């Protein structure tokens, strides 16, 4: 098959949407894991038939499921995310200290080259790696054990590690983001880590420019320019051109610089997309109009993309992993909403079409280009 497979995680199961390269007609398959919350699914770039999913429930905990046939059938793999060492304590919402406790997997990041290698970001924040296709998981504990750990605190959704960027040019380098701790980078394959938050300013913490404590919502990177990172922070859209050493704001003329996801165009490293949300208490788009904003200048100057998106009475949210791109020649862009809609654009965001309209609340959207 030549086309696109969209992996949709929702509050009540997972869905697999497929189309040919025209992206006009879509087949919806699901729900898989009906009734389970699926925070994320991710396909292996090294073997697109291999897909991981992270279903969980409040009753029965976390599962990891793996498909080796493109999402048609699934099998349980390992789900033991026990921390590798004695857990320390982190900040709780009321300023007290609380021990680290596993609650769920937020994000799966497969290796681009090894079908058996996959990383998992979890709550309470830690990074795990499996090198046997998900059967066993090992914590890269140097991150959780970082000396700043007692200053980390949960965002509204929990203290989650939600972003894992693998540097395509440097296998020893990984960058992760934690809400609300900030961005951390390793240059020795996960043994040691350091915070890279210089330039971030957050009014919601005692020292606005603190080393850690920032509520980073998502990072994005184009594989051809791994030193350029984009960030949607709780407030502010940010950019770094030195692999996170320094950040500067690129919110420019956005109608709100609060939001969750950020992605980069597949073929244009200076074209970046965000979805402005009114505020941290109003989790819906400004003016009830769902608009994706695109910058073709790497930030600061943004244009609203509205054609095909609801422009009145729209009060849904778009969560941090619910915006994605494909890599076809004309880049496709996909977003999912908490109202259960998935919209697709096959022309870099100029026009949009709903490809699923009545799903459970969408938590994540990932795209495989086949």
């Amino acid at each position, binding site marked *: 098959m030549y086309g696109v497979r969209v992996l949709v995680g929702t509050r009540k199961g997972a869905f697999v949407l497929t189309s040919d390269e025209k992206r006009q007609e879509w087949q919806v398959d699901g729900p898989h*894991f*009906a*009734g*389970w919350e699926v925070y994320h699914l991710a396909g292996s770039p090294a073997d697109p038939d291999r897909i991981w999913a992270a279903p969980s*429930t*409040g*009753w*029965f*905990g*976390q*599962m990891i499921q793996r498909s080796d046939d493109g999402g048609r059938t699934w*099998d*349980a793999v390992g*789900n*033991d*995310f*026990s*921390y590798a060492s004695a857990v320390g304590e982190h900040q709780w919402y009321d300023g007290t200290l609380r021990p680290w406790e*596993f609650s769920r997997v937020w994000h799966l990041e497969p290796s681009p080259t090894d079908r058996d290698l996959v990383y998992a970001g979890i709550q309470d924040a830690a990074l795990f790696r499996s090198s046997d296709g998900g059967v066993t998981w090992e914590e890269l504990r140097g991150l959780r054990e970082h000396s700043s750990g007692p200053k980390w605190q949960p965002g509204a959704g929990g203290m989650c590690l939600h972003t894992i960027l693998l540097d395509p040019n440097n296998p020893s380098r990984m960058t992760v983001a934690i809400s609300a701790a900030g961005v951390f980078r390793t240059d020795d394959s996960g043994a040691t880590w350091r915070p890279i938050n210089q330039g971030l300013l957050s009014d919601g913490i005692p020292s606005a420019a603190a080393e850690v404590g920032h509520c980073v919502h998502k990072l994005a990177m184009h594989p051809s320019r791994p030193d350029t990172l984009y960030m949607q922070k709780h407030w502010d859209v940010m950019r770094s051109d030195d692999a996170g050493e320094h950040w500067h704001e690129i919110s420019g003329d956005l109608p709100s610089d609060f939001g969750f996801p950020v992605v980069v165009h597949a073929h244009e490293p200076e074209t970046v997309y965000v979805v402005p949300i009114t505020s941290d208490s109003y989790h819906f788009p400004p003016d009830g109009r769902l608009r994706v904003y695109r910058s073709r200048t790497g930030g600061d100057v943004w244009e609203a993309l509205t054609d095909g998106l609801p422009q009145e009475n729209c009060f849904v949210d778009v969560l941090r992993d619910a915006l994605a791109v494909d890599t076809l020649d004309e880049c496709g862009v996909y977003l999912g909403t908490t109202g259960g809609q998935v919209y697709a654009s096959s022309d870099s965001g100029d026009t949009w079409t709903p490809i699923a309209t009545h799903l459970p609340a969408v938590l994540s959207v990932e795209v495989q280009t086949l």
Partner: protein
Amino acid sequence: MTIRVALPTHLRQLAGCDKEVRVDAPPTQRGVIDALEQQYPALHGTLRDPATGRRRSFVRFYACEQDLSHESPDSTLPAAVIEGTEPFRIIGAMAGG
């Protein structure tokens, strides 16, 4: 010893099994769950926290119209469960509206 075990929907779906299954196990909660996880590896970690080994908060164990959730995991199950006239029931606690 063969124990009848009734499973909730989520776990039946996960294990790909019927509502009620039979496991050969020592007649204790621990014995039954160990055997269940061995027979259906997909259920590993769904009833007990892998880190602590404790029953998950929203998982309940019932049998013979009694709540056995707070019994010791090594307590002997009721005679009717051992004799096979009653199932050991695993329940997702009532929650979610």
